């Protein structure tokens, strides 16, 4: 589980072009410099690299109300069918 979370953080980090410091669960999504494109890309890479499926509809963005990276990781964990 910890490894899985580390992998998720690594993928998010690759897309976080606005990030200046460390990436942790407490980092605010607003500070990552990501947009609607990035979310779709992050999910694609999670599926490709971690061999899981994330049922996700780009028109019903389930990530709209999240504030922190921790929220994003929890939401991904909930969606993922391992």
């Amino acid at each position, binding site marked *: 589980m910890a490894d899985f979370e580390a992998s998720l953080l690594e993928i998010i980090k690759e897309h976080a*072009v*606005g990030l200046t410091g460390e990436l942790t669960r407490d980092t605010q999504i607003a500070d990552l*410099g*990501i*947009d609607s*494109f*990035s979310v*779709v*890309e992050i*999910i*694609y890479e999670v599926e*490709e690299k971690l061999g899981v499926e994330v049922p996700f509809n780009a028109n019903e963005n389930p990530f709209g109300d999240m504030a922190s990276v921790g929220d994003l990781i929890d939401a991904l964990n909930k969606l993922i069918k391992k």
Partner: protein
Amino acid sequence: MTRNVVVTGLGVVAPNGASIQDFWSGLTSGKSAILKREYSAADKYSLTVPVAPVDGVEDRIKGLGVQLMRADRFSQLAVMAAEEAIEQSGLEFGEALGARTACIIGTGIGGQITFDEGYVNMLCRERRPHPLTILKVIPNAPASQLSIRHGLRGPAFAVSSACATGAHAIGVCSDLIKSGAADVGLAGASEAILCYGALESWRAMHILADETCRPFSKNRNGLVIGEGAGVLVLEEESHAKARGADILCRIAGFGMNADGKDMINPAVEGASGAMSLALEKMKIDDRSRVYVNAHGTGTLLNDPTETKAIRSVFGADADKLAVSSTKSMHGHLLGAAGGVECIASILALKNGVVPPTANYDEPDPECDLNYTPNNAEERDISVALSNSFAFGGLNAVIAFEKV
């Protein structure tokens, strides 16, 4: 009241210069940016052909921001060109101007590099297509990116007519401003298809040059594919004057028609008809002051057909004209050709210098105009004509005049 359209900004990313300044010094130097390069796919297939690539712009692409870094190359080149044009115009698109600004950016093909990579990944590496593939390849991607970037909310769409795309985009945008649908417009085109699959398809057509592009020269044997983008800022004349803009030239005419005959072979009547339409409302006293930036692809058929068309339009005065094909230096930018060549035409008009036809080795009795061979020529130009004649017989010609 008649609405006239003027040009107040130019931006270019071309193989022989990735800014207006570099492009102009490239054009007047007579140096060709054509070289041979190998393109491969999946470590399995490859070909080596002459091409005209845009090199050394990676840092500028990164500087465009995250949204553009993940766009296809044809969008990136379009936005680079547009940024230069907007900067020169001095325009800032606030709420009111944004609503009155059109954005007509064409492409001959669209995001072919993304498509190619997608297929190689799917079929050779068993990877799924990238989720942004569609948003990257759609031909309207550059128009949409620019609209979002600058809040342009007037008419916005892509034009596509193969090698006449850029000229059609500029002509249509000019007509939109004339009609009152917009006061300002970004107009031009972009193309970036230098990848294995695309070049193999062009080679299959048996129309690529074996060494370089030699327009109007007897030893010409085909075209050379290039990449790049050319974007103009067009503006209703009184709008430009009211804000004290530096007006580069006026769009004096736009002629478009179709041959209605053949997908490959061009027709003299179509080309001459489009030129005549562009010149229809103009009174030109001294035809030695006219520059024709020819379509001049360097293929066996285009060049004599275009020569005959120019002769039929200008009659005995055709020998007075300055003609050249700058494709000899920047290659054939396909959809972007009209955009980049309109800019070459405007720069010739403004600077009083005709860029040459490079690689001109040997006169051809069937191509008997003054093609400004190999060396630029100083000439006080009053009218510049940019010819674009597409595969499929679609023709577009723009005439620019000094203000």
